């Protein structure tokens, strides 16, 4: 790891002032479980690390009586499981998918959202967009078994690694950001962007902005679930995941729905057409399976990842059934 200078500011404004104006100069240190590994491999080489763990404003989880919730960026993955296993299962189940207690204890909500892609080309030093010397991506004809099946028209083919983002999209949450000009809120879906250069990031943050928390709107009467299709139960990222949030009336007809997909695209994917299809329906296995088909209608396999399309369909179906049965 390259050497760096280190600061532990006590307030958000101090932290923002200590961050550089260009990506690569400085990094925000929270749990460190991803960042330090990237730095050991010289993928990320900041000159300064700004530890935000001493900033009290970023801590804590607050549930309000109307079923809404406010989660600080420093809330750990483990705290999410404790806080939401009854009230918002989609979040607790997504957090439980991170199967290492060490990661759950150290890893934070902000870190999960800002985690860099797990693409092995990126991690091996080929750059975020994994391009060869002619500027062509190595992914479409390379080993792309874990790469994108949606939103994969280039230039990025990696999948967003966030465990929580699909649930936040399904729940229509907002992400709060603090920067030199104060605070701003972004829809969870819009927070994530597909980068077009190696030096860009996969999220809507400026280099001197910090994710400060997540707000989840009222979840009263909302049934939610996350289903991950995994290669193994032990520590690994899912092959495909789906989070759903569904509201039903007394007659068990769906009145509102949200569906987020994980590990299928360079951004966490909002399956809005599949969610719209559910409205007015009574959930059964056929309806859930049809929603899965609609969610993946635009999917396009690369040379080695066609299997992921079916896995993602099944994830949608099972998440819907898990939430509503």
């Amino acid at each position: 790891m390259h050497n760096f200078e280190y600061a532990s500011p006590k307030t958000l404004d101090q932290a923002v002032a200590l961050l550089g104006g260009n990506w690569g100069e400085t990094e925000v240190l929270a749990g460190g479980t991803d960042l330090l590994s990237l730095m050991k491999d010289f993928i990320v080489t900041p000159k300064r690390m700004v530890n935000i763990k001493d900033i009290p404003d970023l801590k804590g989880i607050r549930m309000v009586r109307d079923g809404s919730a406010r989660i600080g960026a420093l809330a750990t993955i483990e705290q999410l499981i404790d806080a939401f296993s009854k009230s918002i299962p989609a979040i607790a189940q997504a957090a439980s998918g991170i199967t290492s207690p060490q990661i759950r204890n150290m890893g934070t909500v902000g870190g999960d959202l800002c985690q860099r892609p797990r693409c092995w080309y990126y991690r091996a030093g080929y750059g975020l967009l994994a391009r060869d010397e002619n500027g062509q991506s190595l992914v479409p004809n390379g080993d792309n078994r874990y790469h994108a099946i949606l939103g994969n028209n280039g230039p990025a083919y990696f999948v967003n690694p966030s465990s929580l983002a699909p649930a936040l999209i399904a729940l229509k949450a907002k992400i709060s950001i603090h920067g030199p000009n104060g605070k701003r809120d972004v829809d969870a879906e819009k927070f994530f962007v597909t980068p077009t250069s190696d030096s860009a990031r996969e999220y809507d943050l400026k280099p001197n902005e910090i994710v400060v928390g997540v707000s989840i709107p009222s979840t009263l009467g909302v049934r939610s679930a996350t289903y991950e299709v995994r290669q193994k139960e032990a520590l690994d990222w899912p092959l495909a995941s789906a989070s759903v949030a569904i509201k039903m009336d007394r007659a068990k007809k769906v009145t509102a729905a949200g569906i987020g997909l994980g590990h299928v695209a360079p951004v966490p994917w909002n399956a809005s057409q599949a969610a719209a299809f559910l409205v007015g329906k009574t959930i059964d296995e056929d309806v859930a399976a049809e929603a899965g088909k609609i969610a993946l209608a635009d999917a396009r396999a690369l040379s080695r990842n066609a299997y992921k399309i079916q896995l993602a369909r099944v994830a949608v179906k099972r998440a819907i059934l898990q939430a509503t049965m």
Partner: protein
Amino acid sequence: MSSSDERHDNPQDLHENGSQSGVSRRNFLKGSGVALTIPLVAGGEKIVKAAGADVPVLGPGKVNITLNINGASRTTSVEPRITLLDALRNDLDITGAKRVCDRATCGACTVVMDGNVVYACSVLAIEAQGKKIQTVEGLEQNGRLHPVQQAFVDNDAQQCGFCTPGFVMACKNMLDKHPAPTHEQIEMGLGGNLCRCGTYHGIKAAVAQAARQSRRGGRRNG
């Protein structure tokens, strides 16, 4: 550190590679352990004005740090990039936690920090200050193994033994939180540790034995 050797991921690696001198790094450190506990450098700190406040910015040179390890206060001097794991092993000669993947994956470096298991390879030593750190060295008391350690011995829960200190810490922490663990709690509690020899069967038997003992109140020295 000069830019010419910056591709080495930490300065201790250089010593390790250059061990033809006949002096192993660990023996060298053991011999000079007394000297290392004396603060070396007080520098490496500047004050930066940030949002109207004076914020200390440390490094990139060595800075003095104090760690609370197994109940004892230990002072050393490290660059900000040095992980808790490397500070324990290379600067403080506390070598129970092992460096294997060094990428927050395998669990061999597992220590307990403020009551929770963490990967010591992915915590900076400088940010571990003020936390209560417990390593496998802190479990044995008055020459008696901790019941979790004894259970690992009794159930042959290791082959090469390299993952064992991390597994013992993960097991102990899991049992502290769930004295009568369910199958799911065992899976969730030990899911962050790998054993390449595949002694999971023995480890599960050790967990069962240690859990029986903790339910009988036999575990009192953790």
